[in-house]
């Protein structure tokens, strides 16, 4: 009975805060203040009530999975609605910050252009470079793992290179490989290579002496040990590296376009739209990039759960 009344209490507070949030948003929309102090007050009020709503929602669910799913969505919705309200209520010029609705309209209206940009930058530039870079790093990692000389020599260099601002090679690679997607892929290869190398080498070293001894009692050859024991054991590290370099790949492909590109591509679109102060278009490109990044990340997470089901971090 007590738990029931508690649940009722939190449910009521969720509903109350939601209603308050909507009312305040509507009131702000009706007023259209241009006074700075009042504007700040509205923003603070919206933020506070919105947060109270999310807070109540997080405490609401008896079953934690509901709160786990609902809370981030609620926060996202609150931020979007608050953003829309503030932009319309305060008449923020779209040169500074376009409203979400305006971005959505631009996004829907330019699907064809954005799709072409997506194919050019993400599929051709980032993905081809990502695959080549990861494959190269994999081959090199097996070599480094096999020969101790390379491990002691190449690994410190690799660690050092992984910390460097490799984006800086973009102008050079664009000069070598031309303006089209090949140069973007080259930048991605260089950016992805060292983090992957360091991660895979660390992963290949992640077997215990006991496990390796067991393989020896089976009289397994080097390659048998590698394929049946050490590669599977390295997978969590490999996925860690894959996730880190997925983001790096997108960054590399887009930034490389700032140094020269054909008249298609996400980086080109950002630069061109900025020149026309068409910020709604820039934000649409951001949405595309965010979707691509999240999809790739999600895909890797699913693949990881499927392949490394035995690892403690994946067990439920």
């Amino acid at each position, binding site marked *: 009975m007590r738990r029931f009344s508690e649940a009722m209490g939190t449910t009521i507070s969720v509903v109350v805060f939601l209603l308050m949030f909507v009312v305040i948003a509507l009131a702000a929309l009706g007023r259209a203040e241009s006074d700075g102090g009042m504007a700040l007050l509205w923003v603070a009020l919206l933020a506070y009530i919105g947060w109270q709503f*999310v*807070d109540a*929602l*997080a*405490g609401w669910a008896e079953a934690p999975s509901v*709160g*786990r799913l609902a*809370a*981030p969505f*609620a*926060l*996202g919705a609150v931020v979007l609605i608050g953003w829309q309200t503030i932009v319309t209520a305060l008449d923020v010029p779209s*040169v*500074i*910050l376009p409203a979400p609705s305006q971005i959505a309209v631009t996004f829907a209206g330019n699907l064809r252009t954005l799709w072409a940009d997506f194919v050019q930058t993400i599929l051709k530039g980032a993905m081809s470079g990502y695959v080549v870079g990861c494959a190269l790093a994999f081959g090199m990692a097996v070599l480094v793992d096999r020969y101790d*000389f*390379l491990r*002691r*020599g*190449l690994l*410190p*260099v690799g660690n*050092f290179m992984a*910390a*460097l*601002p490799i*984006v*800086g*090679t973009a*102008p*050079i690679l*664009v*000069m*070598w490989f031309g303006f089209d997607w090949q140069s973007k892929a080259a930048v991605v290869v260089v950016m992805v290579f060292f983090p992957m190398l360091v991660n895979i080498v660390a992963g290949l070293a992640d077997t215990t002496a006991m496990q390796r001894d067991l393989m020896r009692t089976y009289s397994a050859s080097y390659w048998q040990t590698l394929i049946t024991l050490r590669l599977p054991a390295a997978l969590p590290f490999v996925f860690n590296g894959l996730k880190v370099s*997925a*983001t790096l790949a*997108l*960054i590399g492909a*887009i*930034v490389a376009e*700032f*140094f*020269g590109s054909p008249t298609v591509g*996400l*980086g080109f679109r*950002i*630069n061109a739209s*900025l020149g026309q102060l068409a*910020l709604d278009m*820039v934000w649409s490109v*951001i949405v595309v*990039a*965010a979707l691509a*990044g*999240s999809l*790739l*990340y999600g895909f890797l997470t699913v693949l990881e759960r499927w392949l490394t089901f035995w690892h403690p971090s994946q067990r439920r």
Partner: protein
Amino acid sequence: MPVLAVIATLLAIWYVAVVPMNIKEVLTQAEREGAVIVPPSAAERRDAGRWGLVFANLDLIGPSWSTERARLPAPHQVAGELWKSTWVEETTGRRGIVQSGSFSNRSLIYHGGVTLTATVLGFVIGSVLGILLAVGIVYNRAMDLSVMPWAIISQTIPIVALAPMIIVVLYSVGLSGLVAKAAISAYLSFFPVAVGMVKGLRSPDAMQMDLLQTYSANKSQSFWKLRLPASVPYLFASLKIAIAASLVGAIVGELPVQRGGLGARMLGGSYYGQTEQIWAALFMAAVMAAGLVWLVGWIERRTLRAMGAQT
């Protein structure tokens, strides 16, 4: 020793690669000076393979290591440019520190300084924000549930690519130059710090938390006396990642605003075909990254030793 061997190998590969990369330009140059080269017509040379040209004109390998505006400058050319644009420019240049009392705006020291200021400012802001967010996430269930997924999603967005927009927008609001670059650096450095700190603040195990409970320690006491000290090793591990990311942010942030900085030097070099300038700026950035990471590591060792860690 193996490190030196690998570096020497890399340098050797670099020297060898310079020859085919530059051979076409070298041949054109030699032809203008009246030398006899093997495929005499320019059209034939355009279609020929680079290595084929090298073997047909073995006597012209030497000049390919000293061409101006090379496609790939040789290591000693880059080192020369690095020396020229730091030491020589400052000591003998008209605008150098010796002649004018301030760092020359044509020297890499000046541009490195511009980048360094933005990097450090962004790093400090980002780290403080990251730590505060981590504390919030650890002590507030709602923040843990609602903010953490968005923080992860925000990192899958290639935010560096948005640098131009952030700078233009901040500029139109009246914040310019340093603050805008620092904002990008801060964004990039905040996430690793937040994630590392959350992990660190949660690292004390149940036994240790129970011990504090038997001492009837309150929340702030358990924070200052257990959670915070326990998180320090995690904090420094993520600070090292964060400062490298912060440098990348500052460099990319300098691309749209041509007002000094290593990023501006790189873009300028790529506009005017000054490859040596790009490479020199790149090496300067590499030295800075290594120095910053080393500095954080040094502070880490000092702090851990002062805290009584066994190393």
